[in-house]
């Protein structure tokens, strides 16, 4: 059977979901002025930018935004080979005592988040690190969970979740590609 693609979030639904996530982030921070948001390269950075903009437009708060490229902290160099181009890691603030919300597009095995935690630890000692993801697809290989989840989906290991953001992909959408539907 050819792969079948279904849309689980269209542009409108994605916008609504991000708005809810922004609210939950503020709730989690409960008025702390130590909140910073750190997106994981690549699409986590765009999502982090959206969340920062939403918080600013609705609550008037300027939340600092950082970017993290976890390529050099991956544990699979020997199995999948190098990602040829390493993205930018940019944390323009001191991590000491901060409440960091890591933002990523999809939470799956948990290995990316593990790498992000390792990398953040090399930059400083935050007060707390929380995780916000647009999609949680299950299938964890490490004891890691998200504090804030946009959408939960339950799919087979052979399926793939694609997050599209208009900055990079000309549209906003979350789709699932089912490969072995039989």
């Amino acid at each position, binding site marked *: 059977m050819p792969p079948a693609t279904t849309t689980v979030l269209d542009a409108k639904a994605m916008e609504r979901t991000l708005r809810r996530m922004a609210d939950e982030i503020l709730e989690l921070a409960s008025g702390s002025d130590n909140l910073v948001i750190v997106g994981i390269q690549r699409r986590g950075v765009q999502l982090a930018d959206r969340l920062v903009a939403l918080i600013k437009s609705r609550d008037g708060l300027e939340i600092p935004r950082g970017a993290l490229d976890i390529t*050099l*902290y991956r544990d699979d160099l020997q199995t*999948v*080979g*190098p990602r040829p*181009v390493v993205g930018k890691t940019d944390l323009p603030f001191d991590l000491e005592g901060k409440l960091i919300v890591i933002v990523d597009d999809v939470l799956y095995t948990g290995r990316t988040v593990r790498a992000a935690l390792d990398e953040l630890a090399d*930059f400083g000692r935050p007060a707390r690190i929380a995780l916000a993801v647009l999609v949680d697809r299950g299938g964890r290989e490490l004891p890691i969970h998200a504090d804030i989840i946009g959408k939960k989906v339950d799919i087979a290991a052979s399926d793939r979740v694609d997050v599209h953001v208009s900055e990079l992909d000309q549209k906003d959408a979350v789709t699932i590609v089912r490969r072995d539907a039989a």
Partner: protein
Amino acid sequence: MSAPLGKDLVGLEGLSREQLQLVLDAAEGFKEVSERAIKKVPTLRGQTIVNLFFEASTRTRVSFEFAEKRLSADTVNVASSGSSVSKGETLVDTARNLEAMRIDMVVIRHPSSGAARFLAERIKSNVINAGDGTHEHPTQGLLDMLTLRDKFGKLDGLKVCLCGDVLHSRVARSNIFGLRTMGAEVAICGPRSLLPGDVGQLGVTVFDRIEAAIEWADALNVLRLQLERMSAGYIPSLREYNRVFGVTRERLDRAPRDLLILHPGPMNRGVEIDSNVADGPHSVILDQVTNGVAVRMAVLYLLAGARAEPSRGGDAR
């Protein structure tokens, strides 16, 4: 894309524009690591790298060692003096012994042209050429290219002149091969006794006078003049070399544009380059050194991944 450079980096000759571009782009990402408070990432944790130096070198060896350590690799330095190498062991035996100790990578500096390739063909570990005789010094070529790209924004159409002892320079060869592939125009300038005779066939322009080279070029890469070239009779004296071929402030002041000045080091101040040029506003000699670490990290990273088993492909999403 699991082996973008293949197993080894023996030279820049034969690498495609895409491959060179890839190393330079990857190096860009590694620059930032050296700016962190903790200058270390776990990328090559558990990997063993031997720095096998059959020739004295401080700069290149230290640069490689920093690159390796900042990627968390375990490194061992073997220098020719005091090693089994100086006891007459052949290179092939040295290679087999290293292999038997299950190392992952070898960085080799050797006085014979072709030695890095010789080693690469005989061991399974990745081999990186850190300078082989008068053949190539690919990571130096790459860091020169990265430095030029940083300053000019591109290499395509850039006019770069290599000045001095091209005949005996591995740096010159790597620059010629790499820059030409990237679309730069390359010239060489120096006394004809220190230029290869058939060099025109390598696709470079030859200038007999340094004044003409300065008039033409956007950047000068001033090569180190090995002092023993004088005793070997290639030039009459260092004094005369400086007077006729030296890159001096006075000569640069007459140029139609500001020239970027590169030098692979170590410099002979007052011979091939004057101090006020080396320390002047257009010198990027220290940027080269900084970029050297990033380029070497990129090369180590790209080659280490080349040993990946292609069992699981792609990102888990």
